[in-house]
């Protein structure tokens, strides 16, 4: 999938993460901000990159502001932002590339 439009998903509430995706041409440019970056920075990066790879997103600027989100929340927010950037809200591939 391509990042077509700027899109955002999630909030800055505790246990959540706010994910912004923007179009880009230089691969994945990932920025992570988290109060637990020293303990969980690598894990957050891994989950986000794996999710983007599953969605076949190869280019784009991705910004994560993490507020202590579980892995399942991070995945949900990244997927939501990517599909929003494509304007897709129905007939989603649950259990396919969304898993």
């Amino acid at each position, binding site marked *: 999938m391509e990042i077509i439009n700027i899109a955002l998903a999630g909030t800055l509430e505790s246990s959540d993460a706010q994910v912004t995706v923007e179009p880009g041409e230089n691969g994945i440019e990932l920025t992570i901000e988290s109060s637990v970056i020293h303990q969980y920075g690598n894990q957050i990066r891994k989950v986000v990159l794996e999710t983007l790879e599953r969605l076949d997103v190869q280019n784009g600027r991705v910004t994560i502001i993490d507020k202590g*989100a579980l892995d*399942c929340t991070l995945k*949900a927010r990244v997927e939501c932002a990517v599909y929003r950037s494509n304007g897709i809200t129905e007939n989603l591939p649950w259990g396919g590339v969304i898993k």
Partner: protein
Amino acid sequence: MIHPNKKRLRRSMMFLNCQKPGLIKDPYIYKPDSIMLDLEDAVAENQKDAARYSLYHALQEIDYHGVERVVRINGLDTPHWKEDIRVCVAGGADTIRIAKTESAKDVKIVEEHVLAAEREFGRPEGSTLLMAALESCKGVLNALEVCEASERLIGIALSGGDYTKDLQTTITGTGVELMGARQHMIMAARAAGVQCWDTVFTNLDDMEGFENETRMIKMMGFDGKSLVNPRQITVVHKIFTPTEKEIIFAEKVVREIDDKKAKGIGVFTVDGKMIDIAFYDGAKRTLAMAKAAGVYKGDL
């Protein structure tokens, strides 16, 4: 074949907003019988999509420790319900709560889409249960046909806020405005052999009022109540779980009726109370509920 969980213990059904990851990550610690993951009213219109992704991953990845996972989907008058059903079934929700149900046709439409989703996502056919929320005068009046609409239907729940709006009154705290609906719904549910749950009590500062209302709906025959806060769980479980005294009496009734029946005696006394065969099913139900609640280990 009847689904093994169709009649499981459902004293407490706690609403949780799927839009809030902090709420849906660990509600099992409060030990409700069921959680109600909400895609409907609690979720803002422009966040319906976001709530579905959160729901899917929560269903797939969070261990809810045996707590039943019910999902409330958006009404059939919205553009959201079809995708709601797809994500519920794909994620493996135990039960789908149909909002604003007004007729058997509503249940059958949802049933048809659930079956299609079970086939699409490779889930066993018939594995997803349904429950119906009655939120209007028409829905309440059609309670019996709703209860009989599907083998998947576990029961009906009253939604007091919308119902009283349709009735052109308000929630007064006395229960008068809900009396007719409650009585009608519990009779319809029992006639159809399904369960019935009461509406939420939203004034969290009035725990005494909540307890009184819960005692009343227990006396009316309800199976449990929809809840909005973990503080309400303990109260409901206390009221809906048989006491030790009730369990001992029920055991005596069952044993005495079995014994006296063999001796050709129809009516007799237990602890000073006149007992006959009419008490048998009630006593068995008390023991079954006590067993399901984990407070009875006997063999009856």
